[in-house]
């Protein structure tokens, strides 16, 4: 649990130190002073410069900081001193205590260093808890590799797709080793680690249950619904397996409860050490049945009250009782206590007004640009595929039939998902996530796109599951049951043009993605956005110039000089290949 620092900039600064976990010294204490001491005379950057000027005594530094410090900022420093998890060296601690007028506390004697346990027979042993990261003993100079196998099922990682988190010193000890990004350790997470020695060989795997990080374990086991293969094997049984056995369905030891939505029968299964199902695992059911799945890591959701999502047995008539609950909100739309900030409104507008058109598609407040960009591409180049994708059941429900590739046979199987018209909405009107351009009125808004997105969220797990990035080509596969591919555009202008012409002329969908990491600055003021997916609407030629016509799935925001601000614009091929990193297309 991060400590509660009220000053936003100071909080950001401290969070960065938590990530690096290096002990804080006098320099960092001055940075804290600069953040709390900024005011009418100085901003934080200029105050830091003043504080660091040669000849400025500690007393002067303290006085400068105190001049701009508010009561709240004083409290923030006290919080850092009393609750901060990043070690403060004695000088920095004493200095900060003086800043807030607190008598300096004597530095407690350093406890004797416990004898170093020898590496276990595995070649790697972990010591202590994980409050400051992973620590332990292995061979001198070995690098430490780790993967968070609690979070890994949500991505595309194999169980041995580790990242290097640290290195053992000359005595074989390592400490403060941390996983970052989506893999950042939280209380109760399972972390799989090993040491890689100088000769390239490795220790045995060791799995650690992270402790000492937060007051309680509040992250439940993640379930990759999209890896669950379920099929009718006759005799009233359906088999359940991991369709991508090299990646996890969930964390080892997690329990999954399957509830047959037709019969109400429940069955429990424990995830194996490799993150999959026990061989031969079956459930009572038949083609067309849908199963609600709830997971527990043994600490969270132990009553299985909260469902993760649903899987449906392909084939058979769709059950009349398989209406799927609304998918959960993205984590950004939950408050600090994990409660939803938004509620649903029943939308009753027409499914289609005048067939599916790319202009219908408007991305909502969700990081899933790849999805609306792909849906607009399908609507542009193959609108019949949209008409085949979603059906109005005439009773306020709709069935969206996705296609799931069976990697063993290469064939696609149908995955029907039944949803109603309830969509998360803003208090002042309009759908929160994907919506349509014609109206925000719940009685008038065209529904095909928001309902397909809702069904996709439910199939994959939640709006959170689909709202943290993805690939346009995966959506072509999932919605059309076709093979799709992507290509890098680097130095591939001619090849890209040929592919665009070929795909557009064949009336197949295609899209493009911009660069992300480290290249964001080149997009500012261009009208094109970094780390973003676009629909390729077509191509144009004018003399020797060749243009790619694109659409921003926001339905607005485009380079200047492209007419109405509807998100549709064209770029010269040369500019397209400079600004875009990848192209995605139906093969």
């Amino acid at each position, binding site marked *: 649990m991060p400590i509660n620092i009220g000053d936003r900039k100071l909080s950001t600064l401290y969070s960065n130190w938590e990530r690096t976990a290096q002990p804080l010294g006098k320099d960092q204490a001055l940075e804290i002073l600069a953040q709390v001491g900024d005011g009418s005379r100085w901003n934080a950057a200029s105050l830091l410069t003043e504080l660091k000027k040669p000849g400025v005594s500690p007393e002067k530094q303290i006085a400068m900081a105190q001049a701009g410090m508010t009561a709240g900022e004083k409290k923030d420093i006290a919080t850092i001193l009393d609750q901060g998890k990043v070690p403060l060296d004695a000088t920095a601690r004493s200095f900060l205590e003086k800043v807030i007028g607190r008598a300096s506390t004597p530095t407690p004697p350093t406890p004797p260093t416990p004898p170093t346990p020898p590496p276990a027979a595995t070649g790697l042993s972990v010591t202590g808890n994980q409050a400051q990261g992973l620590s332990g003993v292995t061979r001198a100079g070995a690098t430490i590799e780790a993967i968070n196998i609690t979070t890994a099922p949500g991505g595309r990682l194999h169980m041995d797709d580790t990242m290097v988190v640290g290195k053992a010193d000359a005595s074989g000890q390592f400490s403060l080793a941390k996983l970052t990004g989506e893999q950042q350790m939280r209380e109760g997470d399972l972390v799989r680690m090993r040491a890689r020695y100088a000769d390239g060989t490795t220790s045995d795997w060791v799995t650690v249950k992270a402790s000492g990080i937060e007051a309680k374990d509040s992250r439940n086991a993640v379930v990759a619904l999209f890896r669950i293969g379920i099929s009718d094997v006759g005799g009233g049984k359906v088999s359940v397996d991991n369709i991508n056995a090299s990646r996890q369905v969930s964390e080892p030891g997690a329990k999954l409860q399957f509830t047959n939505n037709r019969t109400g029968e429940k069955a429990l299964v424990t995830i194996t050490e490799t993150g999959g199902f026990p061989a031969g695992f079956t459930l009572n059911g038949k083609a067309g049945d849908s199963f609600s799945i709830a997971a527990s890591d043994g600490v969270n959701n132990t009553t299985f009250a909260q469902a993760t999502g649903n899987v449906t047995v392909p084939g058979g008539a769709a059950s009349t009782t398989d209406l799927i609950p609304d998918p959960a909100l993205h984590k950004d739309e939950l408050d600090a206590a994990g409660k939803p900030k938004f509620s649903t409104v029943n939308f009753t507008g027409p499914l289609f007004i005048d067939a599916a058109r790319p202009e219908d598609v408007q991305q909502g407040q969700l990081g899933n640009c790849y999805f609306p960009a792909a849906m607009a591409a399908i609507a542009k180049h193959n609108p019949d595929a949209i008409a085949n994708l979603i059906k109005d059941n005439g009773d306020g429900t709709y069935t969206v039939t996705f296609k799931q590739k069976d990697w063993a046979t290469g064939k696609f199987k149908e995955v029907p998902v039944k949803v109603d018209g309830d969509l998360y909405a803003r208090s002042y009107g309009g759908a929160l996530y994907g919506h349509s351009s014609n109206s925000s009125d719940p009685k008038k808004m065209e529904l095909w796109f928001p309902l397909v997105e809702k069904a996709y969220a439910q199939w994959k797990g939640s709006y959170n599951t689909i709202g943290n990035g993805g690939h346009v080509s995966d959506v072509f596969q999932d919605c059309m049951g076709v093979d799709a591919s*992507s290509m*890098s555009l680097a130095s591939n202008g001619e090849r890209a043009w040929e592919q665009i012409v070929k795909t557009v002329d064949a009336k197949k969908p295609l899209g493009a993605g911009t660069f992300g990491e480290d290249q964001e600055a080149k997009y500012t003021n261009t009208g094109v956005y970094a780390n973003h997916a676009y629909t390729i609407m077509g191509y144009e030629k004018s003399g020797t110039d060749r243009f790619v016509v694109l659409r921003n799935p926001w339905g607005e925001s485009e380079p200047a000089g492209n007419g109405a601000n509807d998100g549709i614009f064209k770029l010269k091929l040369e500019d397209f290949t400079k600004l875009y990193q*990848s192209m995605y297309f139906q093969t």
Partner: protein
Amino acid sequence: MAKPPEPIEDVIPQATWVVDAEVLEVLATGPQPPKVEAKPGATSTGQKTASQTVKLKVTRVLHGEKVAELVVEKPEAGYALRAGNHGPFLIDSTKTILGRYGPDSYSFERIEKALAAKR
């Protein structure tokens, strides 16, 4: 990030200044946020860029106290600034730039409409 900008109705109430300005200088850059693990070519991964402290030359104040220059912070976000970048900047009371894409978040036309509605 590749999420659309936040609805302007949610952002305008937080703006102490709304100015037409140009970035004169990037004064400081914060540490790089952690790299988001993602399959190559994935978009909307949520990767953020480092925070920046920048000096703005203000050419027009649409809302707030008259100023000629402002030193403001660009938070960790899905965009980055460099000298010469320009456009409408919405800035809060802590001198932090609002809007998911800074000066590319909203057009002047949309901002002026939102300000008029607020009045």
